[in-house]
């Protein structure tokens, strides 16, 4: 019973898909099957997962947060600026995470206290955070503050804030038992979120709000608090993603991650979350993120251009949803047919 349910689950289907994908890509290009390479490849899409995992929680509440792509750049630039200002890198990291959290707080308070569509709210904040991230160094430069150390503004505009300490940039190249540190962070983050979502009152409330907001209010659930918290988590995750990207590229830039929106939302939706709320799991998003990430890596490895990959990802997104919609419609029809047959034979 339990096992058959597991086998029918979307997560299991994703797992099979992931294994099949790796095998097929491995047959085409055996280098791909090397465990070390497989793990190393996660570096390229760890930031997608760090933003997609908390977004899963937001989407379960029937909300959305598209501002995370701006928060990545914002936290990156804040990290760089704090460090240039002379703060120890650990403090800079703290400030960057704090900024992400505050950005999430802003989205959360706005969403929880108005009936404005979260898409509009986070669209507004997407612009606001991105503009702020882009403008901040220039603004500071105007105030005679050296943003990029000796290189000055011109150097900054070309390559971002560079010269970050190795103790920080090593995050991207450190591995523990072959696993890159960023991916370990992803796994730990996923573990914490999964516990939050599936074991705690907060997680339960997320589903309840997504399934029936009014009933949540009538049940005495602290809807506002839960919503504010979930957007804070989303902002925190995006900031974490921004930090990882900064370490990976060894420079702090305002536009880091700005092209990741499609991939992030595709990971969540392919992972089984319903954009209309009430459905979704952390495991699903994690697996879907891996499927997408390896798809991209694999296609690149066998020489397919990034342009075609984008087409493929878009098609995967649409196909995954239309196939699932069709399966639902068919099973519904079958169920009705069955009842009809049994009922009419009963009457005879």
């Amino acid at each position, binding site marked *: 019973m339990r096992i058959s349910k597991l086998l029918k689950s979307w997560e299991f289907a994703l797992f099979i898909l992931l294994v099949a994908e790796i095998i097929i890509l491995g047959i085409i290009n055996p280098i791909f099957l090397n465990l070390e390479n497989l793990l190393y490849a996660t570096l390229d899409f760890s930031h997608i997962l760090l933003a997609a995992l908390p977004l899963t929680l937001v989407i379960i509440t029937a909300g959305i947060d598209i501002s995370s792509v701006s928060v990545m750049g914002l936290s990156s630039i804040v990290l760089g600026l704090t460090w240039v200002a002379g703060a120890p890198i650990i403090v800079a990291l703290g400030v960057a995470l704090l900024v992400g959290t505050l950005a999430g707080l802003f989205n959360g308070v706005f969403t929880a206290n108005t009936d404005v569509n979260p898409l509009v709210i986070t669209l507004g904040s997407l612009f606001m955070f991105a503009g702020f991230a882009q403008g901040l160094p220039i603004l500071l430069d105007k105030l005679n503050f050296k943003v990029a150390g000796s290189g000055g503004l011109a150097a900054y505009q070309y390559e971002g804030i560079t010269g970050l300490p190795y103790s920080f940039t090593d995050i991207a190249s450190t591995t523990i038992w072959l696993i890159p540190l960023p991916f370990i962070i992803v796994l730990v983050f996923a573990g914490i979120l999964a516990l939050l979502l599936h074991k705690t009152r907060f997680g339960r409330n997320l589903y309840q709000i997504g399934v029936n907001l009014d009933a949540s209010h009538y049940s005495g659930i602290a809807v506002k608090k839960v919503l504010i918290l979930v957007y804070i988590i989303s902002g925190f995750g995006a900031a974490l993603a921004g930090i990882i990207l900064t370490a990976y590229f060894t420079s702090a830039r305002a536009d880091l991650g700005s092209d990741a929106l499609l991939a992030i*939302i595709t990971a969540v939706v392919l992972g089984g979350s319903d954009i209309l709320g009430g459905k979704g799991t952390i495991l699903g998003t994690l697996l879907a993120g891996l499927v997408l990430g390896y798809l991209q890596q694999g296609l690149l490895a066998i020489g397919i251009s990034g342009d*075609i990959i984008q087409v493929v990802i878009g098609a995967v997104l649409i196909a995954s949803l239309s196939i699932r919609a069709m399966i639902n419609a068919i099973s519904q029809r079958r169920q009705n047919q069955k009842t009809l047959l049994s009922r009419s034979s009963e009457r005879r």
Partner: protein
Amino acid sequence: MNKKLKSVLQSRELLVLFLLFILIISTGLFNSNFLKANSIIEIFNTSLTLMLIAVGEMFVIITRGIDVSVAAITGLSAVVLGTTLNMGWPIALALLATIATGILAGAVNAVGVTFLKVPPIIMTLGTLGIYRGLMRIIAGGSWIERLPQNIKNPNIWRFLDIPFFVWLSIAIVIVTSIISFKYKKARYLYAVGDNANGAFLLGIPVKLSLFSAYTLAGLFSALAAIVYTSQIGFISMNAADGFELKAIAACVLGGVGLMGGVGTAIGAAIGALFLTAVRSMLVFLGIPGILDNAFAGAILLLVVYIDYRVRKSLEYKQIQARAQSEDSTNTGVNQ
């Protein structure tokens, strides 16, 4: 009549126009150059691509949908225009191919939303990736340059010192507004967005209406591609990148309600104008222009917040008025 006047005064279009006016005047106080006709016309001219995309987006939002692929359609159509021109196609044929591309791309979205029942944001996010990818594939990944002069010419044409494209866009916006007010089938879009079940029960072709909304968005994105190509003179692979979100922002600013059933082409156009003006104003005020996104975002949030507050107090007044009218109509009916 009085009621009409009141509703005009309460309209979002006017609120944003008023805000824009105040911003222009106060910027002018700092830097009188800003008030010169040339700079105003220049802002208008710069806003045209966004304006056309936003008007297309409006059709979709009115039906309670959303289309984040519009700017990608603009990019794709522009590449088709540039490629066909450089292949030596006559300009009329190239323009036709461009428009066909836009319509086709919009129709693909429409099929996904109306027949495959994929939620609009997901469908168009998927095609956003697809169209951007196709665009690069067609262009071979590099800019399209050395376009023939005949496509760049319209950008120089002027009547009464005002660029041809400004005239053209104004005409398009006005004609679109008139059609969407007077033409019965255009009203279907509003009805579908306002109450899809009600529209279905009244026998309105809901699917066809949705289909045409997404297709129209594609058409307008292609028109934007033509203006863009003519104005810029080459096509970069980032053409109109990020305009999908700006177009949505322009619509929301201009009073197009994301809950469907509300909005005008003029509103969307004013919203686009506003977003474009912000950047110029910052420059004239000596603030780094790169901060324009921050200001645009903040203004968008401010406007939707004000709108929320006004709406809530109106709703309450409506309930009160309704309760009173029920009181007065219902007294002494039962014998």
